[in-house]
């Protein structure tokens, strides 16, 4: 399938996400102050920001893990009306007492019958290149392999929205690059909407259609990334944008952090 065909496929399988005036405070501190954001079906959006800027809080709200917000959140169904959001965390969060394949089948929820779940889990594992490791315990896998199992678990139910909370943050540089291309490949193949929170501007530039920068609880920058896929890592045209984004990020240091030595 050509990239163009894959991308049109992408548009049809994803959920649309709309946030209107999302506000979230913890006690006196308000973390998000009226965030408005529209994400089209099948879009890959990266959210960048300083630590403490509220990007993870925003992600948890979209994922349904945090209900105590004000404002309006709507996640539109794709054409087959699934609207299931799946989350990938920074840690793999695999059940240590379940084999790799059982962990992937876990992603189908409590209703799935064992036989059917295992068949689907096997093909999800194959999609992340771990088809032969299904019978092992998670703790014998490397960090990158565990994250691939977590990705398979998130994708086994064919979600139309995948939210990723710095899933590659704890991986070494090489594993990270491998995971980035894996993520891009499954996104192109399955066409879900993806929202990725990351610290890494280069990662955002490699993967995202759009980069949203959060600063002190507000959206400070919303930038479409025009480069065609597949993108070459470290391409010259990235340089200028990366510089621009990093400058913006560094300027957005929250006042409290400036005084930390």
């Amino acid at each position, binding site marked *: 399938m050509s990239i163009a065909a894959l991308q049109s496929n992408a548009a049809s399988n994803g959920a649309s996400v709309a946030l209107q005036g999302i506000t979230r405070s913890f006690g006196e501190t308000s973390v998000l102050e009226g965030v408005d954001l529209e994400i089209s079906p099948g879009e890959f959006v990266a959210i960048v920001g300083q630590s403490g800027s509220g990007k993870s809080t925003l992600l948890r709200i979209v*994922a*349904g*893990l945090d209900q105590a917000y004000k404002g309006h959140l709507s996640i539109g169904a794709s054409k087959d009306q699934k609207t299931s959001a*799946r*989350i990938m*965390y920074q*840690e793999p*969060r695999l*059940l*240590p*007492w*379940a084999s790799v394949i059982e962990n992937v089948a*876990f*992603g*189908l*929820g*409590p*209703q799935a019958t064992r036989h059917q779940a295992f068949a689907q889990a096997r093909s999800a594992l194959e999609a992340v290149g771990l088809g032969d490791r299904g019978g092992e*315990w998670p*703790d014998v896998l490397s960090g990158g392999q565990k994250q691939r199992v977590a990705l398979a*678990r998130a994708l086994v139910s064919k979600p139309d929205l995948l939210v990723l909370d710095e899933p590659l943050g704890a991986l070494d540089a090489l594993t990270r690059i491998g995971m980035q291309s894996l993520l891009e490949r499954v996104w192109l193949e399955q066409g879900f909407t993806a929202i990725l929170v990351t610290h890494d501007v280069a990662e955002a530039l490699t993967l995202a259609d759009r980069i949203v920068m959060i600063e002190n609880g507000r959206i400070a920058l919303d930038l479409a990334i025009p480069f065609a896929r597949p993108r070459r890592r470290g391409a010259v045209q990235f340089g200028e944008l990366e510089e621009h984004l990093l400058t913006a990020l560094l300027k957005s240091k929250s006042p409290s952090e400036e005084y930390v030595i």
Partner: protein
Amino acid sequence: MSELALLAGRPSSRKRDMFVSFFRVSPNGFVPWLLPLTVLVLWQASASYGALPPSILPAPFDVAKAAWRLTLSGELLLNAAISFKRAFSGLLVGGTAAFALGLSNGLSRLSERSTDTTIQMVRNIPNLALIPLVIVWFGIGEEAKLFLVSFGVFFPIYINTFHGIRTVDPQLVEMARSYGFKGFELFRRVILPGALPSILVGLRYALGIMWLTLIVAETIAAQSGLGYMAMSAREFMQTDIVVLAILIYALLGKAADGSVRVIERLNLSWHPAYRKGARL
């Protein structure tokens, strides 16, 4: 990988592996029994050369003869069976109550707040201190032993079940909820397996307390059982039977510990520390 497999498959190195595992690694090997056997040999030798008078400590051979005699008369088996029955009914009653309360306090804050403080207070009473009161209540009947054993095994199982459930990784619980797991399914797939290592530690402690309590109770107030057998033998200065009973206690303790280890092996094979061949 293939090179390693070849290496392991070579007969000479496999033989060496077996040798190593027999003497060093395998917990079922010969080495753990070396010390008890040496003690036994020294003991027999000093008894045979008259260094140990039989009224202080009978020779192992005499103890074995006593064991044989009591086995033939059926006395040993009968008393052991009675003790076993008492021990395990106490474990069943106390353990079930402790497990149920540990679960409910681990899962519900309300339940914890209404009972945990009380349990922590009662926990500090040594169960054997209750013997005088228990004799007043139940005499020396079966209820007395059942009560003492149940009371003794309750606390380790309660505390470890409660602690096990409370320390289940909250990140895993959040993950499971996000995949739609809740209620019993959440408990069965995530909370119980997460708490199991701790629950089994509690069971292991409880088994130790179970035998200890039962034997003390039988020694003080009983008309049958291993503790009674030892105590009545003392009255006739039959030290061989007293020593026999003590040796049986040692074996029972070892057997109880071994059985929990087997349960751990079967249920915790995912845990690196319990995997076969892991050194504990």
